[in-house]
C-alpha cells in the first residue's frame, strides 16, 4: 500500500486492505519486530470531537511503535475557540508532527484537510462520512472470526449517520460479501451510499427487521441508535427497542454467528450476550491497536526497509 493519506475506505483496493490486515496479523503475532521502529517520530492527534477508543488506540499504537504523540487536546482548550479554521490549525500542527490523525464533526473535513498538508493524514471520522481505520479493524475481526469471502453480514442500527457503517459497506464491496442492512426507515442508508454500493456492483438488501435475515448471517454488526436522532423520547424508545439484541432474540441465529459493535454501546446489546460465543466486540476493540500499528507503519513509509 502506498497512499499519502487515508481518507476513506473507498480509496483502498482489495490488495491494499489485505496488505494492512496481513501486516496487522504479523504485528499481532510478534510486536517486538516493530517495537522501536519510530523512536524519532511524532504523531499529531487532532480530535475536534470526543473520542475514547480511537484516540487511545492511535496513541497506544504509536507508542508501541516506539514513537510518541502530540495532542491538540479538547476543542475547548485550543485556538479553535478563537475562530481558527481547520485549514490553519492543520497546517500549523503539520510542522510539529510526522503524521496526523484527524477527527472532525463536519463531513469532508479530512478530504479538505488533506489538500493543505504534505505529511500523511489519517481520517479518524468526519461527521457522518467515513471512518476507515475502524473499518480496517472491523475487517480484521471479521477475517479472524468468519472469513471475508463467501460472507453474509447483517449491519443493523443507525445506518444513516453511522460512519463506521458507510466505511465498512464500501470496503466489503471488494470481497465476496452479501450485505443486509437492517434499520428503521428513518435511519436507512443514505442514498449516496446506496448509489456507491450499486456502482460497485455490491450485493445489498435493506430490511426493517432482523428476524427474517438472522438465520443466514455469519456476522451481525450492531450500531447504536442515538437518542438525538429522534424528535421525542417516546419515538426513540419505540424504535430503539426493536433493534436491541438479547439472548432471546438470538434463538434462530447460527451457532457460528459473530456479533460485532464499534462501541460504545448503550443498551442495543444486552450484557448477557457478552459471555456467549457470539460476542466479538471487545476483541474487535482490542484489534484497534495492531491494525493501527500496521497502518501507521505503512503510512510512515518505512515498511519496505
Amino acid at each position, binding site marked *: 500500500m502506498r497512499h499519502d493519506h487515508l481518507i476513506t475506505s473507498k480509496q483502498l483496493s482489495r490488495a491494499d486492505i489485505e496488505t494492512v490486515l496481513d501486516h496487522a496479523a504479523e504485528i499481532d503475532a510478534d510486536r517486538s519486530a516493530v517495537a522501536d521502529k519510530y523512536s524519532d517520530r511524532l504523531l499529531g492527534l487532532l480530535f475536534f470531537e470526543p473520542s475514547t477508543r480511537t484516540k487511545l488506540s492511535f496513541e497506544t499504537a504509536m507508542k508501541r511503535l516506539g514513537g510518541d504523540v502530540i495532542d491538540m487536546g479538547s476543542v475547548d482548550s485550543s485556538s479553535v475557540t478563537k475562530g481558527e479554521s481547520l485549514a490553519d490549525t492543520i497546517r500549523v500542527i503539520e510542522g510539529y508532527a510526522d503524521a496526523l490523525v484527524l477527527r472532525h464533526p*463536519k463531513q469532508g473535513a479530512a478530504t479538505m484537510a488533506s489538500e493543505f498538508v504534505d505529511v500523511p493524514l489519517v481520517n479518524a471520522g468526519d461527521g457522518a462520512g467515513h471512518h476507515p481505520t475502524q473499518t480496517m479493524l472491523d475487517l480484521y475481526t471479521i477475517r479472524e472470526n468468519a472469513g471475508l469471502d463467501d460472507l453474509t453480514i447483517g449491519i443493523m442500527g443507525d445506518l444513516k449517520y453511522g460512519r463506521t457503517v458507510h466505511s465498512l459497506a464500501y470496503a466489503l464491496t471488494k470481497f465476496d460479501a452479501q450485505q443486509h442492512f437492517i434499520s428503521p426507515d428513518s435511519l436507512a442508508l443514505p442514498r449516496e451510499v446506496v448509489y456507491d454500493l450499486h456502482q460497485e456492483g455490491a450485493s445489498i438488501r435493506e430490511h426493517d427487521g432482523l428476524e427474517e435475515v438472522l438465520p443466514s448471517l455469519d456476522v451481525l454488526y450492531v450500531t447504536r441508535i442515538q437518542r438525538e436522532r429522534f424528535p421525542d423520547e417516546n419515538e426513540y424508545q419505540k424504535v430503539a427497542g426493536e433493534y436491541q439484541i438479547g439472548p432471546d432474540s438470538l434463538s434462530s441465529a447460527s451457532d457460528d454467528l459473530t456479533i460485532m459493535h464499534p462501541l460504545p454501546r448503550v443498551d442495543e446489546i444486552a450484557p448477557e450476550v457478552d459471555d456467549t460465543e457470539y460476542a466479538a466486540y471487545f476483541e474487535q476493540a482490542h484489534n484497534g491497536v495492531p491494525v493501527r500499528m500496521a497502518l501507521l507503519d505503512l503510512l510512515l513509509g518505512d515498511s519496505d526497509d
Partner: protein
Amino acid sequence: MTNDERKNGAHHDSNESGETDDYGTGHAHDHELRVSKIHNGTVIDHVRSGQALNVLAVLGIDGSEGEEISIGMNVPSDRFARKDIIKVEDRELSQDEVDVLTLIAPDATINIVREYEVVEKSRVDRPDVVEGVLSCSNSGCITTGDEPVTSKFDVLEDAVRCAYCETIFREDIPALIDT
C-alpha cells in the same frame, strides 16, 4: 411589429438558433415576434422550459449593467414541447460560463452572434467537475464553515455531488448556485 422589431429582423429569429424548424420561421408569425434578433452577443437556445431566469442568475446577468436582454419562456419547440430562449446583447459567454449552464440547461445551444450572424454555435458539453460555482447545502459539510476552500462538485449523469461531503443533489440544482 414595431419599427424597431422590423429593423432588428425579428422575422429571421430562427437563424440564430440555426434551425428553421424549431422556433418561428415557417410556422406561426406570432412566434417570430416574441424575441428580436440581436446585433452582437449570445443567444442561448433550447433551454428547458422554465429555466431561463435560473440561467440568467447563474450567469450573473440581471440587466444592472444596462445590457439588453430578451427572454422567451415556454416558446413552442420541435425538440421539446416548450423551451426557453435567452438573448443577451454585447455579451459573449466564456467556456466557464458554458460549463455551468450544463447543470441547469443540459440541452442548450449557445450561439455567439456578431453583426447579426451566428459565428459560433455549440451544444453545451457537461464537464466532469465544476468548481466555485455551486455551494453545498448540507449544513454538515466542511465547505459550509469558514474554511478557505473552493466548492467542488462532480457532475453525474443527472445530478451533482459535493466532492467533500459526497452529498448527491438531483432535484434542485439551481438552488445551489452561488450567486
